[in-house]
């Protein structure tokens, strides 16, 4: 996938470039707004990662200019400003998602991949499989080692998100947003508790190790090769 990153802070820029390159993406960069606008309008990208505060041309203005040309490339906004404010402003200006700095790269990657997939319609998945876990999305039937397990709706949604991102570290915020349609930092162990319930159900069937806690980052559904 071809990604454009417009970011003036060298450290953040290197951090993101390194991460995306490791994932096999082709990433181009711009250090300021004007250069960013030039690249965004002259080339075709699958995703634009845009910092809010840029020299010469602000991120939101750049975004407005890009959108004015009819360009519908997904845009991920990065911002060092406070969380609550940015969501509304950034999304209203035509951004597709946003993250506040500092952020974990794993979360940025998950969010960006989700945005990039949007443009490429994939065949509707009805079946998910991760190691011993299998999930029928239509019947909402989940089996572990062939044995059916009963999940509550929220547990089902959590597990679905983890299975869609197997082997990836998923932050609590991502899980929270995937399950509940609310945007805020619950600052509580609400996700941990739901994961714990899910894990207990796996333990009963001898698979307690399936969901891994990654300290300081989130959770990961392990699929051994």
């Amino acid at each position, binding site marked *: 996938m071809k990604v454009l990153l417009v970011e003036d802070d060298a450290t953040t820029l290197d951090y993101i470039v390194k991460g995306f390159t490791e994932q096999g993406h082709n990433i181009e960069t711009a250090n300021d707004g004007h250069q960013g606008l030039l690249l965004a309008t002259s080339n075709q990208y699958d995703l634009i990662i845009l910092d809010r505060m840029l020299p010469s041309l602000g991120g939101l203005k750049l975004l407005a200019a890009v959108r004015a040309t009819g360009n519908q490339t997904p845009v991920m906004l990065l911002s060092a400003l406070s969380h609550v404010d940015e969501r*509304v402003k950034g999304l209203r200006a035509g951004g597709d998602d946003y993250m506040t700095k500092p952020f974990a790269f794993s979360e940025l990657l998950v969010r960006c991949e989700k945005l990039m997939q949007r443009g490429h319609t994939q065949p509707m998945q009805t079946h998910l499989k991760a190691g011993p876990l299998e999930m029928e999305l239509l019947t909402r039937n989940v089996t572990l080692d062939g044995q059916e397990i009963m999940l509550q709706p929220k547990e089902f949604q959590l597990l679905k998100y983890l299975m869609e991102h197997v082997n990836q570290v998923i932050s609590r915020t991502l899980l929270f947003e995937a399950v509940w349609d609310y945007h805020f930092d619950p*600052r509580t162990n609400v996700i941990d508790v739901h994961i714990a319930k899910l894990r207990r159900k796996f333990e009963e069937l001898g698979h307690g190790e399936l969901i891994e806690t990654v300290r*300081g980052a989130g959770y990961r559904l392990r699929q051994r090769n």
Partner: protein
Amino acid sequence: MEQNYQVSENLQSQAQHYQQLSRTVSRDKFAEQISRADSKAVLVAWKDGKSVIGALSFMPDDMPYLPKTKDFPILTTGPDKLHILTGGIVNTKYGNILIANRTDHFSAMLDKFVSASATAIMVTIIVALAMGYVFSKTILSRLTHYNRLSEEIEQGRYDTRFPLSWRNDEFDVLANQFNKVLDTLENNLMAIRGITDNIAHDLRTPLSHLRIGIEQLINQPADNIHEHCANLLEELDHCLSTFDAMLSLTRIEEGQLELERQPVSLHTICHDLQDMAEALAEMNQQKLNIELGNDYTLNADKHLLFQALFNLVDNAIKYSGENATIEIHQDGCHLKIIDNGPGIPDEFKDKVFDRLVRLDPSRHHQGTGLGLSMVKAILTRHNANISLSDNHPGLIVSIDF
């Protein structure tokens, strides 16, 4: 002119009177009349032989015949010794008599009138000037005072206020308005100051933990580093979320944050609260019951509103202890979150909404101390009212939209 005319009129009529008198009475009677003449109306003198009869003791020379008149001075024994008379000679049957009138009365009166008016004008001017001076001095002094006060404010004394007088005039209206502006500014300033202080206070501790942690990282055995870094990251994330909460709180409190309003059903919110919090309650062996009445739809920022209500439910779960029962009651625009835990002592019921107030002295539960301030700020922005009362035992949080 008016005076001269009156004087000569008077003299003329007197002259005719004496001319007629001389024709009708005897010389003796005439003399008697003259000597008895009312000196207030007119002064008459008649030189009968050598002696002079009448109000005047002498006959001045060179007096013209009436209607011509002439002024002449006389001396009297009264307080105003020198008088000016105007008079003329009238020829009667018994010889010439002098008829004269005191004209200095008029001139004195006129003089007095002129001087009185002059004095009055002078006094008026002086008083007006004095009053004007005093008035302008007062206004000027008030302006100078205001100016001095605003200089004080400029220098950073934000508690300075403009004085109000009993006059309730335009200055007071202006001063009052300025004071209101200053109140708002001071409040905002205090809020910002509070935040910087809080940031310094509450963030220094986790930051110093981080510093210690990073220092120790150098000496950690290699297989321990992963675990150690994860600890540091958690500490750092807590620090960042506190920071974010402080910024958000201020922006919500001061109305700078634009709300993303949409119709929100309280039934939906309550179901979501139950959905999210039930697992938390189960973990503490608590029961979470929900009781819904008539639904109510309000125009709200659902993310913020849910955050506030979830915070309240989360607090009930955290602080009511094991085996407690937590209830969410909703009916129309009234919402109650009730627990049967230890509750909050009355004296703290108001304080809990203040920033960084934590009733849990051990700080056993990790939190920012901003949760309830945020709840209050969010509810206030939604024009909702929140109050705490006792459940004997436990706490009732009532919210009215």
